[in-house]
């Protein structure tokens, strides 16, 4: 009999499950075949891709994918042929759709959950309303319209025995905007012993659990927050932290502004550009490269940003060329050597290694294939040391083209 694993694991890994799905270990007792695990992985990848595209600005990859990941392992052993899955249409945001008690009782009588992937697919095509109608349970019309946004179901503490507990099936429509490969129609939730099983309290409980999970994550993020108990105080800390970070940004920008009279503004800029040329391996006018970098997270729109500005920047750069050359040479020399000296350092030099990579070989061809891993600086060690001085004009031209 399929079983939930204990809640202890769940709570301890709540931090993980939002960012990377570790839900697969929650089903030790499921007789999962190899196909299942494959399916899970397929689900996972697909969902990650899908959730990036989901609808407008209320969904984020951060939010959607954990929900998906949470749901899929729950799904695989839990497709019941007797009860068609309830799939709700709606946003990728998940909400618990409580089924009326009749349905719960009906589900209770099933001995096992068939773990047939084909059934999953077929079941996934049913909508919640159709299912509710088919079940002909009286309270179902109350539940279905207006469709509440689907929520994820949270796992409940089992307590070891599956008998005598009400089981409620929740519905979730995973993606509408995929090409019809709908899986993950629903999620199982087991109500706690002695708790109300009507849809409202369940939904609210799920909502509360979601909020608590987020709060836990925030607690871990904000330093010094894990010891505090109580939502209001934690919120206080979070607010303080956000204000602190914003103030730090202001302060740092003030400092950077203050530093500029010493270093010429343009000098700093060209120095940075020299580094970004290599670091990012992005030619601003090159949309292809932009997509290479942005394929996972960002819209290609961000990469076309610079196209319109090349003219502006050309003018600024050309006007300050002599100064630039001088500073660039100096900086390049310094960074080149500095790189050699700081090879053994860890975190602070990660960024600096990036800059060295850029500055010492500015005219390494930009067509050179560059891995997206930043601190892979070792391959670039094979550059010519004397070069930085030799053709500054060429480098400036390349700067111009780059920018």
């Amino acid at each position, binding site marked *: 009999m399929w079983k939930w694993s204990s809640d202890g694991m769940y709570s301890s890994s709540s931090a993980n499950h939002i960012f990377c799905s570790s839900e697969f270990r929650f089903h030790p007792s499921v007789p999962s075949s190899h196909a299942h695990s494959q399916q899970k992985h397929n689900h996972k990848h697909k969902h990650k891709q899908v959730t990036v595209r989901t609808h407008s600005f209320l969904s984020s990859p951060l939010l959607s994918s954990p929900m998906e990941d949470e749901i899929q392992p729950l799904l695989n052993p839990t497709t019941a042929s007797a009860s068609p899955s309830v799939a709700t249409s709606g946003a990728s945001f998940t909400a618990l759709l409580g089924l009326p008690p009749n349905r719960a009782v009906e589900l209770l009588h099933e001995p096992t959950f068939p773990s047939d992937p084909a059934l999953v697919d077929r079941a996934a095509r049913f909508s919640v309303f159709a299912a509710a109608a088919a079940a002909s349970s009286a309270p179902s019309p109350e539940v279905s319209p207006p469709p509440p946004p689907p929520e994820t179901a949270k796992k409940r503490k089992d307590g070891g025995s599956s008998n005598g507990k009400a089981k409620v099936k929740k519905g979730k429509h995973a993606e509408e905007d995929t090409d019809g490969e709908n899986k993950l129609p629903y999620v199982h939730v087991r109500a706690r012993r002695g708790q109300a099983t009507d849809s409202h309290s369940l939904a609210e409980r799920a909502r509360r659990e979601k909020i608590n999970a987020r709060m836990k994550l925030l607690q871990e993020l904000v330093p010094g927050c894990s010891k505090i108990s109580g939502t209001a105080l934690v919120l206080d800390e979070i607010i303080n932290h956000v204000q602190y970070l*914003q103030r730090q940004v202001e302060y740092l920008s003030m400092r950077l502004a203050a530093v500029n009279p*010493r270093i010429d503004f343009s000098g700093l800029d060209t120095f*940075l550009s020299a580094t970004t040329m290599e670091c990012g391996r992005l030619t601003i006018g090159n949309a292809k490269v932009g997509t290479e970098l942005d394929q996972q997270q960002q819209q290609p729109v*961000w990469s076309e940003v610079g196209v319109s500005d090349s003219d502006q920047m050309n003018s600024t750069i050309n006007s300050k060329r002599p100064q630039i050359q001088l500073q660039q040479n100096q900086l390049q020399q310094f960074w080149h050597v500095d790189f050699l000296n700081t090879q053994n350092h860890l975190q*602070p030099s990660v960024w600096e290694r990036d800059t060295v990579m850029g500055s010492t070989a500015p005219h390494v061809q930009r067509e050179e294939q560059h891995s997206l891993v930043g601190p892979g600086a070792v391959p670039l060690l094979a550059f010519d040391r004397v070069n930085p001085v030799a053709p500054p004009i060429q480098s400036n031209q390349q700067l111009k083209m780059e*920018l």
Partner: protein
Amino acid sequence: MHVTKEFKKKTFLKQFLLGLHVSNSISNPISIQQRKNSIKLSADLAMAFARGRTHWTHALITKLGQKEENKSTLKGILGRRYEILMARYSCPLLYQKVQRRKKSVRSYRFSYNAQKRRSSALKGSCVRVSPSVVARNLENRRTKVLKRLVPGGELLNGSALLSEALDYVISLKAQVDMMKSLWRATQVSSSSNVELVPSAPLQKKDASCTIANSEE
């Protein structure tokens, strides 16, 4: 982290640089305040671009775009996307913001008065509220503050607000770290500029060697 810092570094730097260039070319900043503002603007934009497409990034960009002094810079940076973004996101946000504010003020006052009335009627003169209500009030107040802090937070509720805040905190941290390292870089390079003399490469290398060693 769902956003790899590698991405963020490169994109952030690139965007930051872009922003600095544009703001510098458009209006040569004279005072430190202006420079600071332009730097901050570029940094915020760079952070938003580096993060990608989330609710708060859009809200942040819209907010920045609505200020008069930033418009030219934004136009320069975004190019033709500027018009589209402004058109798409300015109206609904404003509208919803206004609506929500009205609703919240009304409901807050109503609930508070009702509560006072109820409690005073029952208990006499002093206003006594149950601890759960107190907790809820505290939480509500703090949620309101958080909504104001997080860009675009006014429209969100509950778990969505918390997740956006989470995202925002992560990106802010990354932004701060990037700016710190930029600051360190300028420090280092400025100190090196003082020492170095543009001469033969070998000599220069020796000079910079000693400097680097002394810095370590």
